[in-house]
């Protein structure tokens, strides 16, 4: 059941974004920004977390989930450190994703060579 939910929910989010892309000619970079910002807003108004608990990876793997975890981090640190926590939480919560992408990305640039598109 986990897998069915992840497949359907993840698939639906992607399909919706595809519709948005095809209809607006928005460049992928803008789409990614839009997703993360939307994710953190949905998190802040309390929608994304329950949805994510239900849908599992279908909700955490898309970038919306990245936005939600940014918000979660901010909220959690705010509880611990007050105002200063608002500055801490985002990077704390996204640390694994951002560090992972940067470190593996760098290693990738060491190993791989530019290739032609075919």
């Amino acid at each position, binding site marked *: 059941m986990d*897998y069915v939910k992840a*497949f359907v929910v993840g698939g639906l989010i992607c399909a919706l*974004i595809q519709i948005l892309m095809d209809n607006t000619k928005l460049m992928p*970079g803008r789409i*990614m*920004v839009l997703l993360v910002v939307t994710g953190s807003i949905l998190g802040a108004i309390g929608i994304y977390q329950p949805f994510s608990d239900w849908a599992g990876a279908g909700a955490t793997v898309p970038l919306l989930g990245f936005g939600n975890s940014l918000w979660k981090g901010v909220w959690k640190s705010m509880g611990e450190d007050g105002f200063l926590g608002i500055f801490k939480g985002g990077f704390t919560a996204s640390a694994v994703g951002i560090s992972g992408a940067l470190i593996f990305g760098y290693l*990738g640039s060491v190993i791989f060579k*530019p*290739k032609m598109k075919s």
Partner: protein
Amino acid sequence: MEINKKAYEAYVKEVTPVNKKWPNIVKAFLVGGIICTIGQFSTNMFMNGGLEKEAASAWTTLILIASSVILTGLNIYPKIVKFGGAGALVPITGFANSVVAPAVEFKSEGQIFGIGCKIFTIAGPVILYGILSSWILGVIAYVLKAFGIL
């Protein structure tokens, strides 16, 4: 020119062919669904191995990112995106692709201005606006809390 810009824009829209909508949507659904299912599979594996849910999904994130980096280096990920469109851009793997692709491409321009700067070409805005928006929301929440509304 006897035709004005507005009319020309409308005319161009008319004569420019557009991508077929439905096949693209179905493909995005399939590819996105599959990537998320792999994510679920990985999370379950880690949880079966005794990890907490948070830790399991953090490991999953790392695995997805690493796979995307390797597939990008082997020139396979661009093909997945070409086929699956948003299905491959929306998941965290698309974010990883956007980090490694410029790093590889601009390696020739050096460690600092090549890889160092260009690695953020596409990912930079995502990080900036993600952090900024969650900070703004945090400030709002803080104020609401202070007034006892939240």
